[in-house]
């Protein structure tokens, strides 16, 4: 059984490491600038007061933001050799993977936090249906978790952060595009492709329909990518 204390120790170090370097600040500032620009231009130029633009835009921004956050997680430790030190302590590989996963995921959540300001602005402007907002954020967090899992897996394969970024980005992009290329897919496979596409499940949840099938989809993808990352760490033993 992975120990929670060890996971939290690794989690804390990773999160602090983001904030000790420019990474966290660059990510947060650029993210908020992009999302804020779209939100406010919608609000002031188009006179649309809605969170919809945020929930449509953020999944696209995540596509390249999350691989940028996750690329160093394991690649850097492999390059500098600190992974050897980490794995020769009484620490399980699963604890390393979970701690790092949580750190990157929480960084994404922290990045999303200031966008709650938009919700407050909207609430002042008029009556706000809070249900879709809550489910929209839930969808974003689940989607982010899948992306972080895949990014972490990509980072475990290599000691080169650029390679980790590119492979992570491509894997996430493929997952994102699966239900957008249905017209090119044989009819028999279309429903499978749709079900595998992450955006399909995200929009289900964002619409406020919390179906167990969508939750299972997210849980399975997160679990699968983390499991593969643990196995990838263990390849030193092959």
């Amino acid at each position, binding site marked *: 059984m992975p120990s929670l*204390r*060890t996971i939290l*120790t*690794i989690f804390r*170090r990773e999160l*602090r*490491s983001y904030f*000790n*370097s420019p990474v966290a600040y660059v990510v947060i500032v650029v993210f908020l600038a992009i999302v804020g620009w779209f939100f406010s231009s919608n609000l002031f130029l188009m006179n649309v007061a809605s969170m919809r633009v945020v929930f449509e835009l953020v999944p696209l921004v995540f596509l390249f933001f999350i691989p940028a956050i996750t690329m160093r997680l394991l690649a850097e430790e492999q390059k*500098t*050799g*600190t992974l*050897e*030190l*980490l*794995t*020769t*302590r*009484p*620490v*399980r590989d699963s604890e390393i993977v979970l701690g790092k996963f949580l750190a990157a995921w929480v960084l994404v959540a922290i990045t999303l936090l200031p966008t709650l300001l938009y919700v407050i602005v909207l609430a002042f402007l008029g009556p706000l249906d809070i249900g879709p907002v809550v489910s929209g954020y839930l969808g974003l967090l689940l989607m982010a978790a899948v992306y972080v899992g895949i990014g972490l897996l990509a980072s475990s394969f290599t000691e080169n952060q650029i390679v980790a970024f590119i492979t992570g980005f491509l894997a996430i992009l493929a997952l994102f595009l699966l239900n957008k290329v249905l017209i090119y897919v044989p009819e028999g496979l279309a429903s499978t492709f749709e079900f595998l596409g992450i955006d399909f499940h995200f929009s289900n949840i964002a619409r406020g329909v919390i179906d167990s099938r969508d939750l299972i989809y997210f849980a399975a993808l997160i679990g699968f990518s983390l499991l593969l990352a643990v196995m990838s760490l263990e390849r*030193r*033993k092959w």
Partner: protein
Amino acid sequence: MAITVRNLVKKYGNQAAVNNISFDVRTGEILGFLGPNGAGKTTTMKILTCYMPPNAGTVEVDGLSISDHSLEVRRKIGYLPEMNPLYYDMNVLDYLDYAARLQGMSDAAIPGKVKEMVGVCGLEDVRHKDIGELSKGYRQRVGLAQAMIHDPEVLILDEPTSGLDPNQIVEIRKLIRQLGRAKTVILSTHILSEVQATCDRVLIINEGAIVADGTPEQLQRQFTSGETLTLEVKTGSADPLEMVAPKLRILAYVKNVTLLSRHDGVSRFELDVEKGADVREATFRLAVSENWVLLEIHRKATTLEDVFHKLTLS
């Protein structure tokens, strides 16, 4: 905390980095791994620290197998890897705290222990600095401090003094001796004087196999085939090879005489002498009776260096 290694084999592809190594380390012993680069020292250490499993063979630390009780074994071991990898973005105190936590120390015990290691390893002046800003000597001390933070019974140090200046080397060796008193220590090096200065016992490894095992003195004795005497005499003879060398050669215990140089009637010889014999006095008396002027006489015993060359150059 005894360590038992039996028939260890590790292959990278078809190349055996470690080829059927067996040895024991007793509690409290400081064992030196000596060998040329690529001999298999680091690989053996990586197996002992549970970083990677062997292809064959067993390792037991305090009776616990590294394959079945990996976590328990890792709790007992402190490890300083070859390149001393550290997180450059952490400061010294935070890093030691992190290391202590990962070793499973209790929250209450950590601050005291961190403080103690900072004191023992001489890190007071830099404790709030980022590791990336430290000099190599200080980084090495941080590496030792993290290895010993949980008071491990076994210390495994892979080239603990590499890249340090001579003063720092002396200091780190002193530290290892001091801290190693109550621990079982395995350290690897390719610096011969280091072994003589710090280790109770030496294993010489070459091409993945153990070629010698013993105390530095034992090895010197065991691999001594004899000693050499260097002699410089002024004989005035124009042909020392004909006139002087034969007289030296008939001295008791002298096996061979070589003329090294000659210059203005001064000749330099090297005498190979049988093991354990001292022919200096006889040489002196010979010089007196022949009326030679003895300018220099120098006896050279086999050093650990000679043993090392002999065993690893073949």
